[in-house]
């Protein structure tokens, strides 16, 4: 088993000598350090490494190629397609093959666009290292495109009657486009003696291998000897080639009979040496009739076994059924002598042709694009019903769990990136089992660099009804503001967090500030408190006290007086603040109009006498006594006149 596992080497002598321990560093990294376990009962003495200058912590992380700016478009566009797909599925229970095919093509065009931009970049890049790196990505994404396309043909775009060859030919034309490109160039040039070009015959053979018979004929007609008997005969033969078409109404056996006749006809012409005058024409005709020598001669034209496969099938098994592909694939691998030389891409393609979907998904997870491919392909295959059918064959297997397992990994990885975390969230939203719990763990850990980002995190939390996370983010922001001395912002955040302890703490700070230097801060905020005031008694007091200030400033002394009395009567005055309220009564007691009734005044007197020995009002006591006495006399006279 162990040979299957990557062993990563930490460049440290001390780690090598002592051993290592670890801690996870949120979200996806590891901290590794040299370590030696001590038994709980052991003596406390320095280790044998003391003193050391090498006690380092190594932060190990995966180098995620998807985080390269050049691949940002791939991430964002595929995210759009992914979300559209999930949305479509949420809207309706059934989905047509056509829709799934459409999504598959969207994903492929995203890969294609990514490959093109990588190509452009490689042309622009100056350093060799950059070029190598980009070339590496191109290799990765080229493989992905190739596998995805094949999977689309085999698993998503299944045609009636399991006919697969036309699609397979398209696939091979797409991934080995040089013959068609050469042919197009040659035909456009329209010059004499095309056969003098070195690529003339290889192109014709290549076209024939990809089933492009008409273009091959077109090229043959450009040959300077096209009017000779041999050429005309070849053209005639190729023109008569029976085409297998599932919609033609022809049964497979009828087609087979036609094909046999056609091959026999050509074979008899070969035997009659009709093409012997021209070596290349004869080779062409021998290929058509599956002559073994001819096929072994052209093997060198094929770069890979999967280029050979459709060619061989085109002439040997034109009505091949999709479920027979694996057998023929292995045959072609043997023909190319590659049995023991299969590369990763080969293995995946073979697994796909053998319809071993689990093997395909297992293998593509090993590709170096950090799970992008496996996640999106498995999701699409799952929704096309292709994974679910495997459940009856494999013990303990759940298709849903498999695709969610991939989404969890992919989403979690993105959540660890400073600007892709929202994309990550949108994937985790689609893991019914554990998604919301994972979001609950990861969302509050998104580092809050600024207030804007805090707002974003809060919005995402509220959208998912994770109100406790929204409150937590507010609270942490509030605490940060407190530490920076920005009490106003701190109070705003604290109110949003609905944490009454923090709110009270801040209201206290405001009041103590006022007690110390006679100035109220952040009056705008206090003015607009509204019902949020109710989150803490201390804040109610602060709010009401500010209201009193405001009335007083606006010279609404009657109203101010009423409010002040209410405050004095209330049970919410902080211990450190009552004397300030008492002192505030003096100017109102002394004002021209009578503001406090006799009852009010008695209340003030009681309050004052209760606290007469307090240091803080000692020197104001005389003034207060005088003011209250004067106001009382005025009020009593006035009240008696009224009665």
């Amino acid at each position, binding site marked *: 088993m162990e040979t299957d596992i990557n062993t990563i*080497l930490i460049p440290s002598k001390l780690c090598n000598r002592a051993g290592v321990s670890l801690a996870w560093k949120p979200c996806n990294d590891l901290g590794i350090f040299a370590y030696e376990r001590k038994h709980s009962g052991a003596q406390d003495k320095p280790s044998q490494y003391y003193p050391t200058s090498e006690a380092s912590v190594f*932060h190990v992380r995966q180098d995620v190629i998807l985080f390269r700016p050049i691949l940002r478009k791939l991430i964002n566009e595929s995210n759009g397609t992914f979300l559209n797909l999930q949305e479509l599925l949420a809207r309706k229970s059934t989905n047509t093959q056509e829709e799934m095919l459409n999504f598959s093509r969207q994903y492929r065009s995203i890969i294609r666009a990514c490959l093109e931009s990588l190509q452009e970049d490689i042309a622009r890049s100056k350093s060799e290292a950059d070029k190598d790196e980009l070339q590496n990505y191109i290799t990765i994404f080229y493989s992905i495109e190739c596998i995805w396309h094949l999977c689309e043909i085999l698993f998503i775009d299944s045609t009636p009657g399991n006919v697969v060859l036309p699609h397979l030919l398209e696939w091979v034309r797409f991934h080995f486009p040089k013959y068609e490109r050469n042919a197009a160039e040659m035909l456009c040039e329209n010059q004499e003696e095309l056969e003098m070009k070195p690529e003339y015959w290889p192109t014709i053979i290549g076209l024939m291998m990809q089933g492009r018979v008409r273009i091959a004929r077109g090229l043959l007609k450009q040959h300077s000897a096209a009017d000779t008997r041999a050429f005309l005969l070849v053209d005639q033969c190729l023109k008569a080639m029976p085409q297998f078409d599932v919609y033609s109404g022809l049964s497979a056996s009828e087609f087979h009979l036609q094909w046999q006749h056609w091959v026999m006809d050509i074979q008899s012409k070969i035997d009659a040496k009709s093409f012997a005058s021209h070596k290349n024409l004869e080779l062409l005709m021998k290929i058509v009739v599956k002559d073994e020598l001819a096929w072994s001669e052209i093997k060198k034209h094929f770069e890979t076994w999967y280029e050979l496969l459709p060619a061989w099938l085109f002439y040997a098994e034109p009505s091949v059924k999709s479920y027979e592909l694996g057998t023929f694939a292995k045959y072609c691998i043997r023909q190319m002598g590659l049995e023991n030389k299969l590369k990763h891409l080969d293995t995946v393609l073979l697994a796909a042709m053998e319809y071993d979907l689990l093997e395909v998904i297992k293998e593509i997870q090993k590709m170096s694009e950090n799970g992008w491919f496996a996640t999106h392909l498995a999701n699409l295959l799952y929704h096309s019903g292709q994974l679910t059918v495997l459940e009856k064959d494999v013990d303990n297997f759940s298709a849903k769990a498999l695709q969610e397992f991939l989404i969890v990994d992919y989403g979690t990885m993105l959540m660890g990136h400073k600007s892709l975390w929202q994309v990550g969230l949108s994937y985790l939203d689609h893991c019914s*089992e554990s998604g919301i719990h994972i979001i609950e763990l990861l969302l509050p850990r998104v580092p809050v660099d600024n207030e804007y980002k805090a707002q974003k995190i809060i919005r995402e939390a509220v959208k998912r009804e994770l109100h406790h996370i929204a409150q*937590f983010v507010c609270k942490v922001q509030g605490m940060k503001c407190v530490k920076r001395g920005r009490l106003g912002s701190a109070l705003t955040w604290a109110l949003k967090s609905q944490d009454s302890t923090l709110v009270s703490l801040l209201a206290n700070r405001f009041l103590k500030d006022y007690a110390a230097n006679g100035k109220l801060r952040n009056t705008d905020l206090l003015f607009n408190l509204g019902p949020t005031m109710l989150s803490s008694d201390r804040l109610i007091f602060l709010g009401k006290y500010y209201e009193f200030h405001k009335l007083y400033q606006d010279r609404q002394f009657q109203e101010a007086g009423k409010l002040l009395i209410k405050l004095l009567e209330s049970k919410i005055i902080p211990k450190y603040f009552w004397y300030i309220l008492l002192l505030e009564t003096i100017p109102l007691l002394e004002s021209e109009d009578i503001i406090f009734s006799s009852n009010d005044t008695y209340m003030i007197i009681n309050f004052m006498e209760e606290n007469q020995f307090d240091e803080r009002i000692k020197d104001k006591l005389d003034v207060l006594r005088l003011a209250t006495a004067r106001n009382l006399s005025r009020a009593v006279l006035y009240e008696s006149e009224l009665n």
Partner: protein
Amino acid sequence: MFEAQEINAEHKDLIHDVAYDFYGQRMATCSSDQYVKVWDQNAEGKWILTSSWKAHSGSVWKVTWAHPEFGQVLATCSFDRTAAVWEEVVGETPGPSERGIRHWVRKTNLVDSRTSVTDVKFGPKSQGLQLATCSAEGIVRIYEAPDVMNLTQWTLQHEVPCKLPCSCISWNPSLSKNHPQMLAVGSDDANPINGGKVFIYEYSENSRRWIKLETLNSVLDPVHDIAFAPNLGRSFHILAVATKDVRIFNITPDNSDPSGVTKLDVQTVAQFDDHGCTVWRVCWNVIGTVLASSGDDGTVRMFKMNYVNSWKSVAIMKGDGSLAPNDGSKNLSNALTSISQTARYIKLGSIITPKEREASWH
């Protein structure tokens, strides 16, 4: 490919524990040199030493962060028989950084243990500010700060005798308020005759005390570390145990008993002897999908659950002396000498070509 950034922690002896804050942007280290150090990651990704102080008069075994909701708070435990709670205080005068001059103040010293305090862990934040310690004399202590704004006041709420020397402790981090609080305790007692070495306790609201629900009798060898995984809404809890091998248990509580006593169904779901020797540490990633362990063989190993619910080994890391950079480049990683420099990561070598066999442990 994997890459690593080296931070020379400037401890004079081996580091015993490294703890990252909730966001992974701060790091606390502790060592046999009796010091605790706090490191902060700057905007360029470099780690800067912001505080270093002699925290205890013996080896500092463990360091751990409280939930950030309670501010910047650390707890440590030591051979000197104490555990301590530390809070970062920001000075009034503005310092070189925007947050002013900061230092860590010892808020309390918990001196109830008569022997080495081997582990310290903050409880789940839904329960307020709680702290569990365990000690070589075999007692688990639960402390609580009733006023989270005043960390000088801690009350010893519970003393739970375990009878065997305790080496490690883990709170069940279940986010659900429906689950009673749960603790797992491990003992590194070496005598198999003394029975199981992992104990699971639950807090009973009715009797207001911690009740031992289960002793894992299948674990008879010394236990060096223990860790509950995040729950993710499962009906069962996952517990990893570092003993002579790595064990993973599924623990399913059954509350159907009319007496109100929870019964536990405990199943061993994985047992890895990959280390081939004693396992020292077990540690879950944030979402509990990957378990990392370290052991006497000098490696860190990672295990992951696959989609058919079976645990598989996915990666190995080990120290390699031959690849260590020479002393010249080592200075580059010294945080103090190169303040303006951005984070430097080096590509890590591996034994199997990474392109073909990339293990993903995210």
